[in-house]
């Protein structure tokens, strides 16, 4: 009887077939392509557009050039810092970084670079396109862009994909669209309107005398801009991996990466030479420097894959052997700037922090300006321009104890 009890089900079990369906919610970003000719013809001072995702910022005289991530550059007349006026928008799809020499502006455009004459910001003129300068520019996640055209926009589509469980992992994504997997904890996909290009951090372009230096994920590029309208590319230099930022100081370049800060000599401006490296734990790494110290911020999250949130102060008296002087714990420090003994740090959700850095071993916090996720800051003429998640701020810090908000250009919430 027991044998019958066991045998019958086993005999018929071969007819059974279990069912398993795998579901995954993903956000797809479908690229909208435009022809290269049309896109390039449209790189000019077009009608101003509202701020949506501000990135890097650059000042030239009374004009602010503010990057709109992956879209182009806002041109803002800042003759009156209390009343800045958004006067034009230069459409440059794929733009993440800018650098300016005199009246010439250099901007990346996905894998290419465009040279613009900005003598008249209301009527910028394209001078040159340099092709395939940044071949490493990609969006990741398996997406492969059609390089015969240029991505001018993204169409977001949330969808649930169902597949067999036999595939052994998450649902495969497509090469022709950019996908983000569903998120439970951490960053929500709901606020993402499009994929930002890989490497969207603080400055990756910088100019020293007649040379434009750019960093990609692994290379340092040198452009001779003696003739500003005709940049001539030199040989790229491999400088390691996971490169994040570049900062010039005197005859040196400070290059931040996920694993540390590197110092390059510009004794030969066409062949930067490695001098020293300051290593730290894996993190993101904007850096500035003064005569004696380098100031390095590390923050976790995003592409940085680290867990540290701090300010490192590195002594530079022996550039072949930079030494960590002190570490200050922060919330989520990003861009920073220094004016004399005043050190400005964008500390994420903690806002903009102003320190008296006359004694680096004992930074004195002078003021905290509450903003929504401070990202980057530059200072000039006792005015701090701050890029945050909700807009562009200008603060008068002529009296550091009484920082005064001069103006704010809000982020538009409209699609």
């Amino acid at each position, binding site marked *: *009887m*027991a044998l*019958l*009890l*066991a045998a*019958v*089900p*086993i005999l*018929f*079990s071969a*007819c*059974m*077939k*279990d*069912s*398993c*369906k*795998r*579901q*995954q*919610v993903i956000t797809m970003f479908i690229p909208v392509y435009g022809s290269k000719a049309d896109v390039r013809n449209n790189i000019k001072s077009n009608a101003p557009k509202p701020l949506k995702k501000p990135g890097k910022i650059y000042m030239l005289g009374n004009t602010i050039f503010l990057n709109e991530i992956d879209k182009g550059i806002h041109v803002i007349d800042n003759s009156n810092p209390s009343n800045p006026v958004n006067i034009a928008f230069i459409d440059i799809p794929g733009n993440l970084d800018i650098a300016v020499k005199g009246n010439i502006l250099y901007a990346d455009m996905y894998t290419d670079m465009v040279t613009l004459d900005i003598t008249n910001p209301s009527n910028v003129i394209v001078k040159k396109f340099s092709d395939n300068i940044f071949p490493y520019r990609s969006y990741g996640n398996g997406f492969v862009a059609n390089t015969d055209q240029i991505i001018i926009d993204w169409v977001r589509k949330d969808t649930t994909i169902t597949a067999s*469980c036999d595939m052994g992992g*998450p*649902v495969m994504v497509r090469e022709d669209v950019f996908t*983000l*997997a*569903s*998120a*439970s*904890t*951490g*960053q929500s*996909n709901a606020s993402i309107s499009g994929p930002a290009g890989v490497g969207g951090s603080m400055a990756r372009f910088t100019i020293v005398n007649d040379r434009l230096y750019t960093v990609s994920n692994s290379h340092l590029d040198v452009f001779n801009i003696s003739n500003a309208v005709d940049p001539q590319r030199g040989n790229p230099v491999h400088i390691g991996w996971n490169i994040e930022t570049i900062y010039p100081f005197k005859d040196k370049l400070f290059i931040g990466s996920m694993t540390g800060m590197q110092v390059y000599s510009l004794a030969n401006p066409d062949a930067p030479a490695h001098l020293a490296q300051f290593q730290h734990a*894996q993190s993101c790494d904007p850096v500035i420097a003064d005569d004696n110290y380098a100031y390095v911020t590390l923050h*976790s*999250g*995003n592409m940085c*894959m*680290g*867990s540290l949130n701090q300010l490192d102060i590195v002594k530079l008296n022996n550039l072949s052997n930079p030494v960590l002087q002190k570490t200050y714990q922060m919330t989520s420090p990003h861009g920073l700037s220094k004016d004399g003994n005043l050190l400005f740090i964008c500390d994420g959700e903690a806002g903009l922090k102003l320190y008296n850095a006359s004694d680096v071993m004992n930074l004195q916090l002078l003021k905290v300006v509450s903003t929504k996720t401070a990202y980057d800051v530059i200072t000039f003429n006792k005015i701090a321009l701050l890029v945050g998640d909700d807009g562009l701020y200008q603060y008068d810090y002529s009296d550091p104890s009484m920082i005064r908000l001069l103006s704010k250009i809000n982020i538009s919430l409209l699609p």
Partner: protein
Amino acid sequence: MRKWWVIVLLLPFASLSQEKETKKDIPRLNLHVIVSGGVAAGEKSTKAVAQLSGGLMFGPFFTGAGVGVDFYHFKTIPVFADLRYSFGPKKALFVYANGGYNFVAGRNLEPVFARTKDILKGGLYLDGGFGIQAIASPKDRVGVSFGFSSKSNVHIIGFSPCTGGCPNEVVYTDRFTFYRIVSKLSWNFGR
């Protein structure tokens, strides 16, 4: 004429006999408890199952509720409604149907590196079939049944595609339905 008093004397006995026959024909509501154990065989494996049902028997119908343990693939505890119908000579044959929900029991999943989420949930439980039963004692019956069963589970898996953490965690959901042939030996207490 002399026989009329015999008829009068016998009348009460006649009515008494009829009364006994009527009580026998009316089915009674009885409490029954059914304990069963057996195997469930499917695509993946053959595993043990066990059940305990309690309910009311009214004539050939049994209705009740039960709880069990099911070791097929994931260890689960089905909670179900139990219906049976007995028929045939001496009600030796029966058909049954169970329907309910199977809950996940205990630790089913081993830790997997890089998984940020590993959640197992229960689902629908169904079982139906037929059997034969015989009298085991004055009040009990023993039976054997064969049936077709299905149980569903949901497995939610999350992992971080980057070492050290990424802002977006990859999460996917596997929805299982297991189909099995089940055979059980049961003891029915109460009659």
